[in-house]
């Protein structure tokens, strides 16, 4: 189980970097609180946006938090590639599948922890603000249901980390983070923004991820199936592409 040693190393590198806590945990929770406060200050009129309501907001933030996972995988892969450390590992008995597993697993675990923490914070906020609990059962079911989204973002991170150097990769990830927020409808209601914009958003995975996360929270599992399936399809394509890309790069680095 050589890859486990590599996975543990990656986990340690992530967890021992204070910045990863700020982004992966701190920022999503701050966003959750800030947007809830904003929502509290908006008068509750007919037709006011629903997306700031905590039960709509927390699944979207849970997805948004995964974009930082993407950023950190990307930084890990691209900075490993830029140092002799990866060279030395290329000379070791590790194979390309060991590398992929070793990169993916710690970030999957971190992603699952992110969801749990985001939802726990949402529950506390819901109790304070609305005086009522969120659907706990739906939240628990959401944790495994959001797994394909986690893998999707990790796949994008590996893809960028593989093709771009340590300088360019984080910048590109920032663009994806912003894109995911806008195209995913994290803090706006895409359904209310006209059909052409919605068509644009449907071309990217983020909208589907956010949508199915919200439907899972709402317990509307029947309606959830379609966006969930679309997300899984995106995940499969991106993840396979990232494996191929990494293996390809590993070979071409040996030129």
């Amino acid at each position, binding site marked *: 189980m050589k890859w486990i040693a590599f996975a543990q190393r990656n986990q340690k590198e992530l967890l021992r970097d204070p910045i990863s806590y700020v982004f992966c945990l701190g920022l999503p929770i701050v966003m959750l609180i800030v947007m809830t406060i904003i929502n509290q200050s908006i008068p509750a009129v007919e037709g006011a946006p629903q997306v700031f309501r905590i039960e709509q907001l927390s699944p979207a933030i849970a997805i948004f938090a995964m974009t930082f996972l993407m950023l950190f995988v990307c930084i890990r892969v691209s900075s490993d590639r830029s140092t002799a450390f990866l060279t030395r590992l290329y*000379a*070791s008995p*590790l194979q390309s599948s060991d590398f992929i597993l070793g990169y993916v697993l710690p970030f999957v675990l971190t992603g699952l922890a992110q969801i749990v923490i985001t939802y726990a914070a949402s529950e506390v906020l819901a109790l304070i603000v609305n005086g009522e609990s969120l659907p706990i059962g739906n939240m628990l079911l959401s944790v495994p249901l959001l797994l394909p989204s986690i893998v999707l973002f990790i796949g994008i991170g590996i893809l960028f980390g593989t093709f771009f150097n340590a300088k360019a990769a984080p910048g590109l990830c920032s663009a994806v983070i912003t894109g995911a927020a806008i195209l995913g409808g994290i803090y706006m209601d895409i359904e209310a923004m006209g059909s052409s914009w919605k068509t644009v958003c449907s071309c990217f995975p983020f909208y589907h991820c956010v949508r199915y996360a919200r439907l899972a929270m709402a317990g509307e599992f029947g309606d959830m199936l379609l966006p969930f399936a679309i997300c899984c399809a995106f995940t499969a394509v991106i993840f396979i592409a990232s494996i191929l890309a990494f293996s390809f790069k590993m070979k071409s680095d040996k030129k």
Partner: protein
Amino acid sequence: MKTAIRTTGLTKTFGPKTAVDHLDLEICEGEIFGLLGVNGAGKTTTIRMLTGLSAITEGEASILGLDVSKDLKKIKPLINVSTQETAVAENLTVRENLSFMARIYGITDKEAMDRVISSLELEEVASQKAKTLSGGWQRRLSIAMALITDPKIIFLDEPTLGLDVLARRELWSVVRSLKGKVTIILTTHYLEEVEALCDRIAVMAKGKLRALGTAAELKAQAGKDTLEDAFVAIVEKEGTAS
């Protein structure tokens, strides 16, 4: 003596540039073999080809009887390399770096760790994170990470680069202690180092093998009293080196 490494016509080109040019070498098991050459002579490229880090353009190389182009999977667990650049995991402690390396090579021997730590005198920094070490200490760790996997053949690319005089001597004694047990291929720009350690020396210039033999043989061949003078005479013989 059994052959540890054999290259025949080993060549590497990068576009129009020939980095290693038809290199023929035979290195025996247990030998400490020095690769000398000015900057850009092709030493690192040779090591990269032998360790599977760089594809061979032309010619053949075998390690412990296994073909480098075909049997890399079998070769990898038997060798290790300390790259020219220091290569450690920054947020891991010295001990964690070593055990990480041991585990990916499938080494379970717990004593190996203590042995390597004490032979490179890493005790005092053993629980320090690698990124908090000075350059020279990181270098020692990087070398220790190659030693811990108990390789049959070890490639040390400029191992003493950036080490202080004491650390260098320690490394020399580590290398000497491996003599006869492990085959060591060592590159360096310090001629006293090769003279102190190496059984045989190959001098490369512009990717080609220019001279091969013991330090005494090289001096005799060039008609010089010191290895440094002999080295200069050898690499300058056919025009200035690149």
